[in-house]
């Protein structure tokens, strides 16, 4: 993953689409060996020179697409991810075969991997929630891209799994776009430093499967929390 680039993009724009391939692998972490990344919040910064912010405070300079429905769209996206996360994880385990099918708790324990902290609750400030969400889904977007790449290599015939991975990745991508809009529009946040996970590139198949399993299991846990947290903040008013 072109992590520095991601860091630069931050809330100024969504990360590149998680297309198949290792382009979003955690290359930076490999290069630097520094964990964790520090998310830098660059406030009140114009992403593009010469493009003024709207007087209304809109932070979405592109064609006025950052509309009022983005909040609801964001909530619906999180809800979709939450609704599909468990099925995705189960299908993933099923497709990996043994021993993951039978020993998921042991093999997929996410304790040993990096996963963005999501220490917000329903009483947290909305801005804080939005930033945490951005970090989370930027991480997930990259991780899902890597998992998809690995599964295309390891289980090319698992069409259903691959399709779900693609859709989940796409959803996170749209979610990042909406969160960027919200951060800019509502809080004038134009940059968020994001830390990505370890790259699975070069690892064994088992390790790739295990790493994906660990990420997805943690993802199932966190996405539920995020959905619950987000509901009062982005729920229909």
């Amino acid at each position, binding site marked *: 993953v072109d992590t520095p680039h991601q860091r630069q993009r931050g809330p100024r724009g*969504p990360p590149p689409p998680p297309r198949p391939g290792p382009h979003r692998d955690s290359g930076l972490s490999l290069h630097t060996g520094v964990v964790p990344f520090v998310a830098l919040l660059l406030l009140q910064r114009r992403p593009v020179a010469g493009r003024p912010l709207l007087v209304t405070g809109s932070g979405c300079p592109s064609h006025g697409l950052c509309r009022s*429905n983005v909040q609801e769209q*964001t909530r619906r996206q999180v809800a979709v991810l939450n609704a599909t996360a468990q099925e995705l994880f189960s299908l993933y385990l099923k497709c990996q075969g043994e021993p993951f099918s039978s020993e998921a708790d042991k093999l997929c324990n996410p304790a040993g991997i990096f996963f963005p902290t999501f220490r917000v609750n329903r009483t947290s400030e909305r801005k804080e929630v939005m930033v945490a969400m951005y970090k989370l889904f930027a991480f997930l977007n990259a991780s899902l891209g890597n998992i998809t790449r690995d599964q295309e290599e390891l289980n090319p015939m698992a069409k259903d799994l691959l*399709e*779900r991975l693609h859709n989940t990745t796409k959803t996170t*991508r*749209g979610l990042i776009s909406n969160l*960027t809009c919200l951060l800019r529009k509502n809080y004038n946040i134009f940059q968020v430093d994001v830390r990505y996970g370890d790259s699975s590139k070069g690892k064994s198949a088992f390790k790739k499967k295990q790493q994906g399993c660990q990420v997805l299991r943690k993802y199932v846990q966190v996405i539920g929390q995020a959905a619950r947290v987000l509901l009062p903040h982005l729920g229909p008013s």
Partner: protein
Amino acid sequence: MFSRWNWVACGFCLVLNICSPDASGGLVQSCGHIIPESPVLALGSNFTALCILNESCLDFGNIYASQIIWKIKNRVVPKEQYREINRTVSSVTFNDTSSLATPLTCNILADGQIEQNIYGITVAVGLAPEKPKNLSCIVHQKSQFTYDMTCTWNPGRHTFLDTEFRLRYSWPEEVFPDCIPKGVNDSCTITDIQFFVNTEIWVEAANALGKAESDPLVVDPIDIVKPLSPQNVSVSSGILPTVLKLSWENWISDAVMTLKFNIRYKITGDTSWMEVPAEDTASPRTSFSVQGLRPYTEYAFSIRCMKEDGVGYWSNWSETKTGITTEDQPSKGPPIWRIIDASCSPASWTVHLMWKALKPFEANGVILQYEVTVRDKSSLSSPLKKYNVTSTNHTLQLPEGTYEVTLIARNSVGASPPSILLIPASNSKAPVKNLTALPKHDKLWVGWTAPNNYVLKYVVEWCLVSSSSDCIIDWQIALGNVQGIDLKGIKPFKCYLITVYPLYADGQGSGQSVKAYLKQDRPSKGPTVQTKKVGKAEAVLTWNHLTVEEQNGFIRNYTILYKTIDGNETVVTVDPSKTEYTLSSLTSDTLYTVRMMASTDNGSRTGPDFTFTTQKFGKGEIEAIVVPVCLAFLLIVLLGVLFCFNKRDLIKKHIWPIVPDPSKSNIAQWSPQVPAKHNFNSKDQMYPEGSFTDVSVVEIEADDKKSFSEQDLKPFDLLKKEKSTSEGHSSGIGGSSCMSSPRQSVSDSDEGETTQNTSSTVQYSTVVLNGYRDQTPVQVFSRSESTQPLLDSEERSEDHAGGADTTAQRQQYFRQNGGQDENNTDRQCFERAKQVTHANEGDLVGFVQLQVSGESSQPLGLGMEKNTQEAALSNVLQRCTEGQAVRPETVEENPLSVDDMPKSYLPQTVRQGGYMPQ
């Protein structure tokens, strides 16, 4: 000298340049070029091109801009559009590029007025793209997680240039790869879409003349989704017989999109759908119970969905699923009717009860059996009779009376309400009035006027009228308050007999009938006409009625069309009840072609042609002609006979004139040789006068003014002998015997001469008596040699004498013998005598010449011997004369020997009008 070589070199160079106009970058450099190179021009704009000559060509070719000629294709551009900018540059200007064509060439007029091409360019003329309009997009769900978005737009006018359309879309901070249409310019499909993100979509059109963008369409793809219709739809019956539960699965999870639904249903076989109220299915669900259905009825269901908030598109209807509601007890009793057959015995009825199976929505299940109960209303004490029947009819033998029949249908759930039919002893109640049957809206409507009394219901019976089978009755019950119903199951072009019975509470009215067609057509065939009788001026035509199957409608009339071969057709319309018609006023002895046409309200059909010929004569006409003619003929014959009878003497005188009896002639008395009469007397008596019929009479015309002596006749005799010789042997009239040795005799076969000769030479008559058949001739007259004319008195006396002698001896006459086979010496023939033309009846003079066989040396015995052969001779003679118009006659050869006859004869003066006795 240099200049000459210079020109040669220049010319060579020019040729090379010209031969390689596009070789500017190659071996040979062009003498010039055009600016701009391959321009793309807007249609209708102005355009200026420059042709720039190379300096090198100026030096070698001595060519200048003033010599440039511009051409469009092969057409020279008018020089008014040229402009010589300097000695190497010439421009051409077009005020309207629509007049341009490609290629545009720059040419030069070299020495010798040879036009050479310098350079050429292609010119493209077109339009800039218009702004694409009406951009719209729809997201099609392909599978549970797969969607694609298809956008369509109006590309605008045709640009005549290669124009590229691109569908572009972006998120707030991200622009995606363009969607480039393939093969079309008005739609493109994006496969990578994401819900819940506002997406800006627009179309960009670009060509060499410009670029245009459509208005952007900002949309969340979730709002333009056309989802897949629900899958795995199933129908299950509930507890209630009027409820079916519909279940399905949605392709889209509620997290992505909540759905609302439309449910439609219909009874299987129906065409129209019913829909569950939309508000009942406006919330997300995967099942729904449809209520208010009919028991034991199969329903078909289909469902569709769309985004719950109504933004987006409805899915297609799902595939149809069917379900059957559970049974319920029958809702009504079966309609019942009867046919009473009293043909065997009026006192005993055969009652055919028949009822209709309940419709599914009335039966509410499978009817297991029918219960028939018959109650004799005329006898309260008679027990009820019950019958369980599984079919829809039942036959009973009942004595005549009034009965009440009750019918109940039963299924697995319960029994129907009873249907009651009253069978009265007689249908004495009032019938319906004004019964009519009309086709209405493709149905046969039967209407009537109700009787004055209250009617419970009506029974309408109908049957298909057929010529080949019995009328099978169908029936229908109508309520008492209606006065008309549509009959069901009626076929077009068929004749139906419809009968309506009113049913009262206490009896039944008599039936009224009418025939009707639902739809009429022209007859399927025409009548076959033929003649029953053909006369001179009339013909009786007959035909058979068309069968009811052939009629296809009510026959309104028959039309007879007849004509002669070359005549106009005559049309006669005939009442449809008739099967015979008489054509009158026909022309006799004429061939007629007749055909017949049967007509219904909807057309006609003509039968085959039939031809007949009228007779030449009418009936009795021939008889009227023939009978009178025959009668007239008979009358004439009768009158003729009577006349002849009355005038028989006169006729006899003319036809068979009385020949004086020579024996009583004075000549006979003075003749030295008188035939021995006594020799024949006995014979004469054998022949009564009446039987003396065969007489040959030779009439010889004599010139009464001349008298010839025998000597005078000799030369003529010689001549005659010569002639006879040439003609063969002939026996003369009278005494010559054909059996005698051939001797020459005078023949009169040569008519003119003979007549003359005869008249001039024959003054004698010879009477030869022939015996009748095999009898000996009675009398033989020998040639008279007297020249003395016969006296009238003698003649008359001889007549009398002849008449007197009939008892004594049979008078024989000579008859004139026409020319016959005188040459035939093998036959006994008489020498033919000349027939003398009589000046008048009174001048009849006949000479009968008896030619004497000069050489007759036959002994008498021979003659007698020959007499014994009379029969044979007679027969031969008869044959000989058959070919003549005279009666066969027997001419007896003179039995006397010639030696016995006088050797010579004296010429005899013949007096006109008499016969000369010999």
